[in-house]
């Protein structure tokens, strides 16, 4: 079927999702927002998605909002 | 049903009226009277507009229009003669007058003459019960109707 120009790639979408969570909790203040974003990803994302966003946090960090990036670091931390 | 759109004037008429008198349900009869006064009858095409204006269903309005004998769904003749059929007028020879009037005006009771000149309608009491038989001719009360009075009425509605 026809063009899918406007459909995000999976990686773009994961970044978009993480950023979107971060944007929606930003009003809580940075510290709480990072915790909320991290919790959210931990609770609702499947393991493969978590692995991929962790990798993206390294390879495409500039695409992530600071809160999202910090949250992903928080999940990845042992 | 609404094959012909209600005219813009009707819409304006209703809107203006509602603006003045409010749009609660109890304004339905006053509004219908106003429309009939202005237009001469309640066109079926006006019913949806009335319903909309007063927040009623079309069925609500239709039920009311058809309940009250005053409201016409078709235009009346150019002249309307309402002849009393009630007991007090009957006691004064009303039945014979009814027959004579129908004959002289050339239209049966409850109908409009084919040329649209006159509508003859029954009315049940005008409150003139000591001076009958009575009629309303285009809204004007006439008492003690006899053959001569019928002739005068016939001349009047010929105009």
């Amino acid at each position, binding site marked *: *079927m*026809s*063009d*899918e120009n*406007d*459909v*995000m790639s*999976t990686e773009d*979408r994961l970044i978009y*999702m993480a950023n*979107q*969570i971060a*944007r*929606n*909790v*930003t*009003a*809580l203040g940075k510290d709480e927002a990072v915790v909320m974003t991290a919790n*959210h990803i931990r*609770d*609702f*994302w*499947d*393991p*493969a*998605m978590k692995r991929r966003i962790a990798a993206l946090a390294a390879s495409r960090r500039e695409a992530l909002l600071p809160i999202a990036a910090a949250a992903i670091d928080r999940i990845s931390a042992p | *049903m609404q094959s012909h759109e209600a005219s813009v004037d009707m819409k304006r008429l209703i809107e203006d009226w509602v603006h003045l008198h409010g749009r609660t*349900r109890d304004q339905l009869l006053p509004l219908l009277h106003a429309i009939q006064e202005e237009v001469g009858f309640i066109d*079926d095409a006006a*019913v949806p507009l009335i*319903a909309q204006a007063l*927040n*009623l*269903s*079309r*069925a*609500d*309005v*239709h*039920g009311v229009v*058809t*309940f009250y004998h005053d409201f016409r769904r078709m235009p009346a003749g150019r002249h309307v003669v309402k002849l009393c059929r009630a007991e007090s007028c009957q006691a004064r020879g009303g039945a014979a007058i009814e027959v004579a009037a129908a004959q002289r005006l050339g239209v049966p009771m409850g109908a409009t003459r084919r040329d649209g000149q006159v509508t003859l309608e029954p009315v049940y009491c005008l409150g003139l019960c000591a001076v009958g038989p009575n009629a309303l001719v285009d809204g004007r009360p006439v008492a003690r109707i006899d053959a001569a009075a019928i002739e005068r009425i016939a001349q009047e509605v010929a105009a």
Partner: protein
Amino acid sequence: MTFTRETDHGTPPAIATGRSVTLTIDGETVTMPEGTSIMRAASLTGCSIPKLCATDNVESFGSCRLCLVEVEGRSGYPASCTTPIADGMVVRTQSERLKQLRRGVMELYISDHPLDCLTCPANGDCELQEQAGAVGLREVRYGYDGATNMGQAKDQSNPYFDFDPSKCIVCSRCVRACDEVQGTFALTIEGRGFDSKVSPSQGQDFLSSECVSCGACVQACPTATLTEKKVVEIGTPDRAVVTTCAYCGVGCTFRAEMRGEELVRMVPWKEGKANHGHSCVKGRFAWGYAQHRDRILQPMIRSSVEEPWREVSWEEAIAHTAGEFRRIQAKYGTRSIGGITSSRCTNEETFLVQKLIRQGFGNNNVDTCARVCHSPTGYGLKTTFGTSAGTQDFDSIAQADVILVIGANPTDGHPVFASRMKKRLREGAKLIVIDPRRIDLVQSPHVEAAHHLPLRPGTNVAMLTAMAHVTVTENLFDEAFIRERCDWEEFMDWAAFVAEPSRSPEAVEPLTGVMAQEVRAAARLYATGGNAAIYYGLGVTEHSQGSSTVMAIANLAMATGNIGREGVGVNPLRGQNNVQGACDMGSFPHEFSGYRHVSDDAVRASFEKAWGVALDAEPGLRIPNMLDAATDGTFKAIFIQGEDILQSDPNTHHVAAGLAAMECVVVQDLFLNETANYAHVFLPGSTFLEKDGTFTNAERRIQRVRKVMAPLNGYGDWEIVQLVAQAMGLDWSYSHPSQIMDEIAALTPTFAGVHYDRLDAEGSLQWPANDAAPHGTPTMHIDGFVRGKGKFVVTDYVPTDEKTGPRFPLLLTTGRILSQYNVGAQTRRTANEAWHREDRLEIHPADAENRGIADGDWVSLKSRAGETSLRALITERVAPGVVYTTFHHPDTQANVITTDYSDWATNCPEYKVTAVQVMRSNGPSDWQRDYAAQARHSRRIAPLEAAE
């Protein structure tokens, strides 16, 4: 259950005053609630008074004069239906004198009634016939040559029932049912006196009148004047089974009335606690799809979607399915497959599908169509209140003083509940509607919103926060409630947030497009107008801020103390019949049944113990993630029960690509739906008439679905899932769905008290139903929130990234219409097509004029996701800049247009906001023609081989 008509007590129950009255009826002393009519009191005592115009779902009317009785010390013969009982009253319901009067009345009735009882479709099921016998009418002395109302033409315009005015006794039951029960006011009496006749709208036929075909009039008619065509065709029923409707989330109870093995009609059941004997055009009439010739009754498989389907035996189909799942898992890993449960199937079936996935597939890749409708409700209400469900039962609305409807269109989406709502509004409750469209509730006969806030799509959070701003800054909040029931500190944080000037109605007016004064007035009314209840729908959830909006609603309710009693609350109107149940049953990839996270070790241990396997502690994939994973090549097979994700999910192109990338797509459904065009295995499904089980409606009410007839396809859906599970090596051995419910109850604390025997005894149960609430829970959070303290959550307004611009200057929002249901798979296969044969694009006259579009013109509708064509409907229901369409017809495929933006917390798609352009066009788009051809190609079926 054999066929017995429900007892009709003649008049509704008295409005409770708490006082009772003692009187004597036919020598027997009885005590009844004050306000009860003599008729009802007599009926409850067991003596039946003749009646025709009285029926207990409408107010007494007093027109038929058959129910006259004698009351000692009173002159005359009062009508028992309109006379309330009084202390010490001595009533005689039977005497020679009464018999004589009743016969006199009946003689008049019959003098204007055709004498064709023997050939009448209502013969044996006609109250006039029955009462004529009851009053002992033996002759009619008025003769044959008098005036009658007979010989009038029948109106057969309605696809489901006929109107034969010659048989009408002008009792006005139909008119009153339309007014009082349905609230449409489509019927009236035309004329007066002997010429009185029932008239749909302006003396029109039913189909062109204002009638919405809810069936209340047909049900109310005591003669054959209004008769279902099916009764005419098949005859009167001889047995009945009480069951639950499979359409929307209202969950109406019906008596499926059968003649032999044929379903004659569905009659709403008075005892049904969700519907109290009312129905809509879908539940009452649109069940013909169950016998439609399009139903697939034989399993089919194919190795590629390019091939035609091949009919196979159930054994082969099941073995093939299980084999494919195992093969793919072996090749691509445990997490490479998953499934989707259906909100149209029973709780038991849903539970089994998620169990198959968790236990059999060994992963949590299960999701449900609630993902695309009410997942934000689950998230938002769980976060704020502690439980993922509406707080009230439907009856609660009778106590509401202010009703706030946001993002819902109850008269179309939840018509039976809408009738209750309209009744309350007619009683004087005030209405606030927050919706971009002027939905019917904003103004329809006898109902008018006090405030309609026609906000720009996508600005719900800004609007609700502005209302919260008014509540806080004008000191309209309920401090005592908040201090007692919520966390005061959290409230203070939230209050400070919403009180910022940037969140005032004035400040957000440019965003929402709604005048600040109106917002302030609405907020004041909600906060101060007495019991205030919020009802919302997908116009709240299907946004990129869906979860925030749900929480903003919860905040508002908590701040004003409108939670925890009757008449208030936060009430999501669920779309499909069992959305609530599907969510309850653990259909989400992160939760077990009862909304318990898969990472909770204790919960997981209980399931592991029951199921004898280790379970995954990590959340699985959501539907959109499954599709992403499929296009990425890591997700290879899916089991889809009773869903049509291709039509219902956003961005059709993307869904199609995901499905096309899989190796095995298994679809279980009644029909070859759009998704099945991409399927490799098709397992025929069964209808709700063909199986036992339970549905849970929007008020958390668990109700029985009872088998009315044998499944045409051979198996109930639960049996099919069991067959697949068994073929995959699981040791399932359910012989009846009640055993599945027992397992659910054992594993789910909120369902601990739910068993079939209890459901049969009590009619229904609202969860939580357990030791703490043995009779269920009509109203939640009465003594405290489920989570402990109610949580105020700061909900920042984060605008969607879907923006209008020069290319796409209009905003599209989508919804549904009364006569059609969801993707239309069912309703399109019924005579409901008479009302809505195609999806149309609603567009404001100004926008239409700019584009040279006339009413009925073909227009192309284009977004960055895709393009389709449909015909335009020019209307002021939509604001300038906004267009609207429904998504019931695959020919239109409205979801070709919708984008892959979704809710930040749940990925619920943003159906309600899509930037589009609308232009005149010549007809269906190229894509639609290609799609139609492809669908035809994909639906070819090769016949079953004889050698089998």
